[in-house]
């Protein structure tokens, strides 16, 4: 107390009183709370409230003493106001506290020092009122650095917050804790970050990622530990975390590129769903990564392409230089095998491309630089359009983009040619003459001059338009404005220098103009030109000289010099006609006022006019004067920037900025691509929780963590289709398994034989979810695992073929207990092969209607878990089992079966995907299996499966084909051809396969049902046999017959299912009202009455059997 009393007197600075106190306090940490035990700040127990009270007691007297304090010289207002602020903060009324905090924050915002209020503010950190709390946080983060010891008082509040059950509170506690830049708490922060990094909420993990660079900047000794955390977070599969952790990676350990290997593919695939800011960071990191890991895609092309181009732009020095060096390298490796792009490299390019359409300029630029640095020449073009679009944005954006465009257009000429028009006026680089002419008529002279210069550059850079430019410029010469003319002449001079031969005409024209043009620079240029090319215009040149000689005395210096030059040159080439003239000019010059001219005249005379002494020199005079001059290179100022990564600050400033990471050169040899392969165990080992999180990656599933199961509002259609199509266009979706499944499989061997078949058969190898049915209580967890497995698998899908090869056998072994199936391993191998055939052109975009199905029985299980639904969860069975297409006898050893896999067909959403299994039981291999000319009823169409080249004896293979049945049960006839034979086969779909499940809530169901009454409603009464009374059996039977999704339902005896027909997308709603007695009523509502009727028949049959 005593000390506080003395303070005001000791401090002289006005308003600095508090700061002074702070300094003192900072010097001795023990001092702050009176009588506190020295290591008080380590008191991490929740008793800290006691300490929070302590300063409060201190500050009250402090506040009251301060007002009347003995500071007559100081302005009273400042301390006084702080006084009442302190009082307000000390009251119990939240509104007063809030008011005070608002005023304090306003002070901070205006840059006023409010640090002397620290003790009064900091004790409100535990305030209940959220806004007060937030403002206190703002204050704390701003001043904690200055008042470290007092700041420590608040730490325990945050520590408590870190344990809060609410993820948002945990996150915000971590955020503020890590923002307090007080070195003493580094260990606490480290601990908190580590804990948060394995938090179950992705939001908290994101915050942890944010905290990493903060801690690093506070104490770089923690680097190693932080890298561990980063490594862990990099493995995270949520989009929320990805951007932040890569940012942390870039700040803490950008050199540890090895950490990326394992996550590379994941990052590529997640990219599109990451928020914009994260995208920018990830893309630039991946650019660097790719530069170190992949071979340059341009090295071979450069040989082919650069040469003609070089000839075309012969005069371009930089052009010649760039490819030259590249060529050297390629020439050195002539024997190199043709470049094949690494699939991962391709993956990156493919996944970033759609981002060119982002609304964020930063993302577009990031993708553009990625393409510029990484893509093969032929593909770079795609970015041009997007960049041109950016030019319509804010002026600041334009500025940056243009800088980059300039660099690009130097490196990759022609890239922007189609877009030249968009650049006129805006860019100085490529420009089109016609439009420019419009501008030249405008007012702004400076602008005109710049434009003409631009034309010049344009002409030099783009040979094609050079003539147009010249003509345009010559026309400009007749302009009455001198400045324009002058500028034009200068540019023409430069242009002509590059190809003088063809332009005698222009020179003549210029010569005529000398009479009119007054601007000395232009006159000088013309004279120089005439002199230089006097052999092209032998008649005019002397005439011009004569005129000039006449007006010599009146000319400007610069012109006079050129006249002398011209005279000298003419004398040398054509001395007969011009000897006298030259001598006249020289003697005029001799008496000029300007000594430069006098010097020049003397020098010239000595040089050209043969005399006794100068003989030796004069012989060389001709050489001196008429030496061919190299054409000037008109280049823009952007030439030397290309060594910086585009889009970076350093590039913009053309100087290395702090923290700039050099873009590494392409490696000579590709580093081992297998580092990016992800080991199988990694997926299975991952904790369930983490895997579950992964599921959220695709956007649009909003149930998360604590938020509970909002009946999975929309099991996102896109997510799957997106991840699906992303995952791989060439491979379907590989499916690996997880332990849980393999266990289950064993329990269900009996059942599984059927579903398993279809599994293998399905090229996609999607995991069939085991039927919930069996599981009663355990449903929650198992559905969880279910989604885990599929999520993990969807992850592994992304891995490339090489990896698949190692994954597949493994997982299969696990999945299929040896006894359960005769399906030979050979089959899987052929499966893999088959995938390779699948043309990548087929865009595997699954239509939302199919994917967004909800899941039959799994729903009850979901009420306690939040795992979003996975399509694979949703088709519990593959409908009717295997059906025969071609008997082995009829097929001469080739047996063909088919199943309806109930998976969306990747090529066309309207198609039913049919898995066809071939097995060769003959002695000889069957070759060239393909579909021959189908004879189809109108409306039905077939997407054929890719040809199977050969099927060895005893082997079997599976192919997927899509058939659009047009919502009818018509038969699809087609031929199955081998090299030698043709078999006529036909597939008739059961009505239940013509639809795909949709997810809807009970209310929606009722609403839709209400719309489909009358004609569209078909009702049938039936009696359920005893065997068929339990929930799951009913559900199972219905879903076996028809590919429908279950709709949650309030009453226990009612079952509802919903689906849409594939082709027309009309709803099919099925309700089964079962009484306990066994009587039941089946209702089907559908626009398609035929389908409805048939469906009722099928379902009744299935249920009553």
């Amino acid at each position, binding site marked *: 107390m005593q000390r506080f009393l003395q303070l005001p007197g000791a401090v002289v600075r006005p308003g600095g009183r508090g700061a002074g106190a702070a300094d003192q306090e900072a010097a001795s940490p023990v001092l702050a709370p009176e009588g506190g035990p020295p290591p008080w700040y380590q008191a991490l127990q929740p008793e800290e409230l006691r300490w929070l009270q302590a300063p409060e007691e201190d500050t009250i007297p402090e506040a009251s003493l301060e007002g009347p304090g003995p500071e007559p010289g100081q302005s009273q207002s400042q301390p006084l106001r702080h006084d009442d602020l302190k009082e307000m903060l000390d009251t119990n009324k939240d509104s007063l506290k809030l008011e005070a905090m608002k005023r304090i924050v306003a002070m901070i915002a205006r840059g006023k020092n409010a640090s002397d209020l620290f003790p009064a503010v900091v004790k409100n950190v535990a305030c209940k009122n959220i806004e007060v709390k937030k403002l206190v946080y703002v204050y704390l983060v701003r001043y904690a*650095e200055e008042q470290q010891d007092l700041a420590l008082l608040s730490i325990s509040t945050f520590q408590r917050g870190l344990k809060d059950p609410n993820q948002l509170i945990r996150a915000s506690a971590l*955020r503020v804790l890590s*923002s307090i830049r007080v070195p003493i708490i580094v260990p606490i922060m480290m601990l908190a970050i580590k804990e948060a990094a394995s938090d179950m909420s992705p939001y908290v993990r994101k915050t942890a990622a944010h905290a990493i660079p903060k801690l690093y900047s506070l104490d770089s000794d923690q680097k190693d530990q932080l890298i561990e955390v980063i490594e862990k977070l990099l493995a995270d599969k949520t989009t929320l975390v990805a951007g932040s952790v890569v940012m942390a990676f870039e700040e803490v350990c950008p050199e540890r590129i090895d950490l990326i290997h394992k996550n590379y593919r994941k990052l590529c695939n997640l990219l599109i769903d990451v928020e914009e800011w994260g995208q920018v960071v990830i893309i630039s990191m991946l650019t660097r990564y790719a530069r170190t890991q992949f071979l340059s895609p341009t090295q071979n092309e450069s040989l082919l392409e650069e040469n003609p181009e070089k000839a075309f732009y012969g005069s371009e020095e930089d052009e010649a230089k760039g490819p030259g060096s590249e060529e050297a390298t390629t020439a050195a490796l002539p024997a190199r095998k043709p470049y094949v792009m690494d699939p991962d490299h391709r993956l990156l390019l493919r996944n970033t491309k759609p981002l060119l*359409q*982002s609304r964020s*300029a*930063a993302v577009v630029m990031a993708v553009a630089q990625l393409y510029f640095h990484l893509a093969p020449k032929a593909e770079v073009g795609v970015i041009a359009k997007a960049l041109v679009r950016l030019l319509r944005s804010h002026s600041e954006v334009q500025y940056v983009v243009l800088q980059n465009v300039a660099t690009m257009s130097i490196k990759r000429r022609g890239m922007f040619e189609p877009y030249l028009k968009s650049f006129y006026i805006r860019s100085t680089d490529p420009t089109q003459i016609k439009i420019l002419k419009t501008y030249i008529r*405008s007012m702004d002279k400076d602008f005109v001059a710049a434009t003409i210069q631009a034309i010049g550059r344009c002409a030099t850079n783009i040979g094609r338009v050079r003539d147009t430019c010249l003509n345009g410029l010559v026309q400009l010469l007749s302009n009455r404005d001198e400045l324009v003319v002058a500028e034009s002449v200068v540019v023409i001079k430069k242009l002509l220098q590059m190809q003088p031969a063809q332009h005698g005409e222009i020179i003549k024209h210029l010569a005529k103009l000398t009479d009119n043009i007054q601007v000395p620079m232009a006159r000088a240029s013309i004279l120089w030109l005439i002199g230089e090319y006097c052999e092209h215009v032998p008649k005019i040149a002397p005439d011009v000289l004569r005129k000039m000689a006449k007006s010599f005395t009146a000319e400007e210096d610069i012109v006079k010099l050129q006249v002398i030059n011209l005279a000298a040159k003419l004398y040398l080439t054509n001395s007969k006609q011009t000897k006298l003239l030259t001598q006249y000019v020289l003697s005029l010059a001799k008496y000029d006022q300007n000594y430069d001219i006098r010097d020049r005249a003397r020098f010239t005379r000595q040089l050209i006019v043969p005399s006794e002494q100068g003989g030796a020199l004069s012989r060389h005079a001709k050489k001196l004067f008429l030496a061919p001059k190299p054409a000037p290179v008109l280049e823009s100022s952007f030439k030397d920037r290309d060594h910086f990564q585009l889009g970076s600050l350093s590039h913009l400033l053309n100087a290395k900025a702090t923290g700039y990471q050099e873009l590494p050169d392409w490696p000579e040899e590709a580093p081992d691509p297998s580092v990016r392969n992800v080991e199988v165990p990694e997926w299975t080992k991952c904790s369930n929780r983490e895997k579950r999180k992964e599921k959220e990656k695709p956007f649009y599933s909003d149930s*998360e963590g604590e938020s509970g199961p909002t009946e999975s509002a929309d099991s996102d259609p896109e997510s799957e289709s997106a991840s699906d199509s992303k995952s791989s266009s060439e491979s379907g979706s590989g499916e690996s398994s997880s332990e849980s499944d393999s266990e289950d499989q064993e329990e269900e061997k009996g059942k599984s034989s059927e579903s398993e078949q279809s599994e293998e058969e399905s090229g996609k190898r999607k995991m069939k979810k085991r039927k919930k049915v069996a599981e009663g209580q355990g449903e929650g967890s198992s559905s969880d695992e279910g989604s885990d497995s599929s999520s993990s698998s969807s992850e592994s899908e992304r891995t490339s073929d090489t990896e698949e090869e190692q994954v597949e056998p493994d997982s299969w072994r696990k999945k299929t207990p040896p006894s359960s199936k005769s399906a030979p391993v050979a089959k899987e191998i052929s499966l893999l092969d088959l995938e390779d055939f699948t043309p990548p052109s087929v865009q595997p975009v699954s239509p939302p209607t199919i994917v967004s199905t909800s899941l039959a029985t799994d729903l009850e299980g979901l009420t306690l878990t939040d795992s979003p639904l996975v399509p694979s969860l949703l088709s519990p069975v593959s409908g009717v089992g295997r059906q025969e297409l071609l008997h082995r006898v009829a097929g001469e050893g080739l047996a063909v079966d088919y199943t309806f896999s109930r998976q969306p067909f990747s090529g066309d959403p309207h198609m039913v995907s049919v898995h066809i299994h071939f097995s060769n039981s003959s002695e000889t291999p069957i070759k060239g299996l393909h579909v021959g000319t189908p004879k189809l009823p109108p409306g039905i169409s077939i997407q054929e499966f890719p040809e199977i080249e050969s099927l060895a004896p005893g082997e079997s293979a599976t192919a997927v084909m899509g058939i659009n049945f047009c919502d009818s049960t018509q038969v699809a006839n087609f031929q199955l051809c081998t090299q030698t034979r043709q078999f006529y086969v036909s597939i008739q779909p059961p009505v239940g396969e013509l639809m795909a499940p949709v997810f809807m809530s009970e209310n929606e169901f009722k609403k839709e049902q209400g719309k489909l009454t009358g004609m569209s409603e078909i009702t049938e009464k039936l009696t359920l046999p005893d065997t068929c009374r339990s929930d799951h059996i009913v559900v199972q039977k219905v879903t076996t017959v028809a590919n429908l999704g279950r709709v949650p339902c309030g009453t226990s005896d009612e079952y509802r299912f919903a689906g849409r027909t594939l082709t027309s997308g009309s709803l099919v709603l099925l309700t089964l009202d079962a009484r306990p007695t066994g009587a039941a009523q089946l209702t089907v509502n559908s626009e398609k009455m035929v389908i409805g009727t048939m469906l009722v028949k099928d379902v009744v049959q299935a249920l009553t059997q």
Partner: protein
Amino acid sequence: MIHSLFLINSSGDIFLEKHWKSVVSRSVCDYFFEAQERATEAENVPPVIPTPHHYLLSVYRHKIFFVAVIQTEVPPLFVIEFLHRVVDTFQDYFGVCSEPVIKDNVVVVYEVLEEMLDNGFPLATESNILKELIKPPTILRTVVNTITGSTNVGDQLPTGQLSVVPWRRTGVKYTNNEAYFDVIEEIDAIIDKSGSTITAEIQGVIDACVKLTGMPDLTLSFMNPRLLDDVSFHPCVRFKRWESERILSFIPPDGNFRLLSYHVSAQNLVAIPVYVKHNISFRDSSSLGRFEITVGPKQTMGKTIEGVIVTSQMPKGVLNMSLTPSQGTHTFDPVTKMLSWDVGKINPQKLPSLKGTMSLQAGASKPDENPTINLHFKIQQLAISGVPRSLHSKTF
């Protein structure tokens, strides 16, 4: 990343500063002021200014400079884009983004900025989420707050940040579910003296105002999607679906947002719906020139042309103009030589015209430039490009 942010008004006062890392002294802005002095106009201040220890990236909007201070390498567009986003957010919050408004709401501004960046890295930039965190001030709320002492800060925890649809709030409810889409198209065209079009390009945006309950999933298809040459989307739009089917499929944010902007290239040349007849002549001998402009509609499909404004930069030699418009008002500024004529609506029966004489500087030779005429106009309910949406279905 972004270290600090300074808001500077056009007279050079720093009226707001915010630091996300340790404090950067505001003296760093001196470099900015220097650059500002060198640039004659506010628009000409370079967006990136290097200083010995920091880099200043600035954006000039609404007569305020938003100057971000950064220390390390960062893509400049990243920062610039962010600054623009800040301005947009303020505009969204306060209706206008001007110095007095920011000063009045300094606390809200500060809170918003605090949420937008964490340690210099953008955290929550979606205005939907921000509004959930910090409620925008309205008159009503201000009154209520002063009386009851309640606050602007949302007392509910923002769940939006957690969702994988970060742009949409959860639990949105409306009694009237409605969605509006505005298609706004701009044509930029240059027409030469004889009336032929040199370039024309169409720049269009679709702004949406969606007020729908729950988590609606909308699809929007276009009559002629091939016309769209170059599009950029709000992040809610599913890229894949667009690429494969040319259908916009999205879960919209709540409220107003820009769904997409597109560009229709000059290849599909468009008919400009307006024409200008001009007759401007200077005579060598006299100090008087004749001036006559008529504006008329052309292929407007029966729609009226509104908000027509003609501006023209006259040559320096023109001292004054005495003109009589047949409708609307006109002004001529003798200092900048800018003629502007606010025409209003065009009545096709009676074409608006502006006639009169120009007085030229005596003795000077006639100006050799032809003045350019800029014409701004608006047409409601007409989409020049013919792309507008044809179908709008929604599913829940």
